[in-house]
């Protein structure tokens, strides 16, 4: 089974994804938005969140859900440091001595860590072993029809510290101003999850785990997505810049084989996705498509998807 979710969320005054700092100024991630005016192209920079940022948050939720279900998570991932068995130093924490056969390396990693099973890894030694992530996340970009209303504004802050002469070092001042660039936009992003990839070897195609554990891991992967969206716990600086807003729309498609909902950055994404799914039906494929707009809340749509997956025997 394959799950694809289109999410629209409103975020006012957020600092969810910061990039470079220049002195006391930290910048929000931005992307160029190309506008054509009188035959000439103009670039407007709008705030954005990278897929990597969202992927990191998803994996943090996956750690918590997996541990809650009594599944194995390696020490690095438990600390939310997703090194993913990238070299011998990290792999030795899971299996020592390290096997020579790539198949055995993959089995050892997948068995000992749900996050590396679902999120993939790249062991960059000899022999190299790679496993693609079972989930994919696009950038979160402002919805195209209102992208020009998205803003990136610096907010001034001041740090105060009382210092007496004995604790003062160098020319450190008691007050220091700094700026955090905040974004405001209606964002859209796509999240895909290939449930069939979980617990199955990316070398031999054979299941690495028994059917029961496969099902529990799939459930953990779904719960992590549910929790991430429902709690709005993704992105940076949530402690002081928790965005004002929330999820406005969710569209969920569950299919037998890969299929991606039209990106929610386009206004016609729900209608287009419905029409495209009708084509799949013509090819003899069953699917579930549910949307949360207006009356229905996102959690209801996600629960429908979970119930459908349970009916289909995914977990």
């Amino acid at each position: 089974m394959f799950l694809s979710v289109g999410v629209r969320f409103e975020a006012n005054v957020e600092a969810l994804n910061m990039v470079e700092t220049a002195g006391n100024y930290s910048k929000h991630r931005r992307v160029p938005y190309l506008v054509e005016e009188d035959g000439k192209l103009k670039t407007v920079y709008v705030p954005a969140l990278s897929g990597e940022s969202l992927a990191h948050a998803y994996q943090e939720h996956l750690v918590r859900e997996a541990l809650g279900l009594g599944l194995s998570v390696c020490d690095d991932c438990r600390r939310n440091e997703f090194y993913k068995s990238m070299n011998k130093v990290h792999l030795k924490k899971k299996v020592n001595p390290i096997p020579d056969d790539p198949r055995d390396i993959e089995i050892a990693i997948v068995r000992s860590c749900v996050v590396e099973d679902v999120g993939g890894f790249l062991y960059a030694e000899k022999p190299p072993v790679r496993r693609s992530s079972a989930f994919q996340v696009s950038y979160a970009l402002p919805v195209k029809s209102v992208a020009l209303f998205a803003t990136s504004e610096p907010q001034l802050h001041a740090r105060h510290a009382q210092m007496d002469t004995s604790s003062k070092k160098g020319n450190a001042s008691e007050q220091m101003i700094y700026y955090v660039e905040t974004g405001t936009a209606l964002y859209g992003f796509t999240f895909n999850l290939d449930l069939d990839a979980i617990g199955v070897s990316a070398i031999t195609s054979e299941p690495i785990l028994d059917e029961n554990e496969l099902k529990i891991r799939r459930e953990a992967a779904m719960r992590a997505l549910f929790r991430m969206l429902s709690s709005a716990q993704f992105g940076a600086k949530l402690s002081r810049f928790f965005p004002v807003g929330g999820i406005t729309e969710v569209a969920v498609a569950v299919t037998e084989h890969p299929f991606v909902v039209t990106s929610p950055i386009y206004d016609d994404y729900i209608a287009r996705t419905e029409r495209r799914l009708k084509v799949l039906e013509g090819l003899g494929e069953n699917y579930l498509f549910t949307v949360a707009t207006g009356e229905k809340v996102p959690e209801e749509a996600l629960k429908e998807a979970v119930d459908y997956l349970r009916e289909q025997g995914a977990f």
Partner: protein
Amino acid sequence: MVPLTFFLKVTMRPTGIVALRALPQSKMRTALRYVPPTTLIGAIAYPLHHLSGNRAETVYDRKTFKSTADGVKNLFEWVTVKTIGKPRLYGALLKINTVYRGKAQSAVTSFPSAVMYGSGDFTITAVYLVNEEKLSKGPYTMKDLERAAWGITRLGSRESVVSVENVETGKAEISEASSAETSYAFPFKGFEVQGRGTLQSVVDWRSGIGDYSSAKRIVMFYPEGTVSVRGKLSVTTVGGETLVLAP
């Protein structure tokens, strides 16, 4: 009797970003502006394998290894792409702080991407010409290929999510010509081209998919809009559009 070949014409909408690395493992990881043929093969290989329950990604053969996409490359006579809207290469600067052997170090880098995002329409249309003989000898049918085309999820990295908006199938006729007008990428070799476009060095997918450290490369011309091509051409028409094939 001119041979006809099956084609798949796949129209995709990007989710704003297409991140494809031109030179992996370099300090400044330059992005490709346009989608190379190897990525198009990999993109369709994943859903195609999914249909048969094949989850394998890497094939190990003694000390060499290849992508399983290499196993499906022979199903295609030719692959090419048309891009509507000019992608813009952009990457934010990232500061990386590390501690190496007890010393704090700082470096600045960037991971640029091709940004396909703006008030206009950005679409990527891939065309796959199918080798029917190879297809008939393998486990997949034309219907499987069509379903796989609908199942393309990304072009390259896991952030480069796309949605397939339309799949057209049919039969195409390959013929000789001295001139053609095309919007699709073609190998830049001994042709006279009139119009705007970008030259991009890409891995020749026919030489193998997986390890590109010593792979053969070809120069492809990616048109902006439509260009006129003159020379000794091999051409075909799919869904009313002309493709220029490899000489």
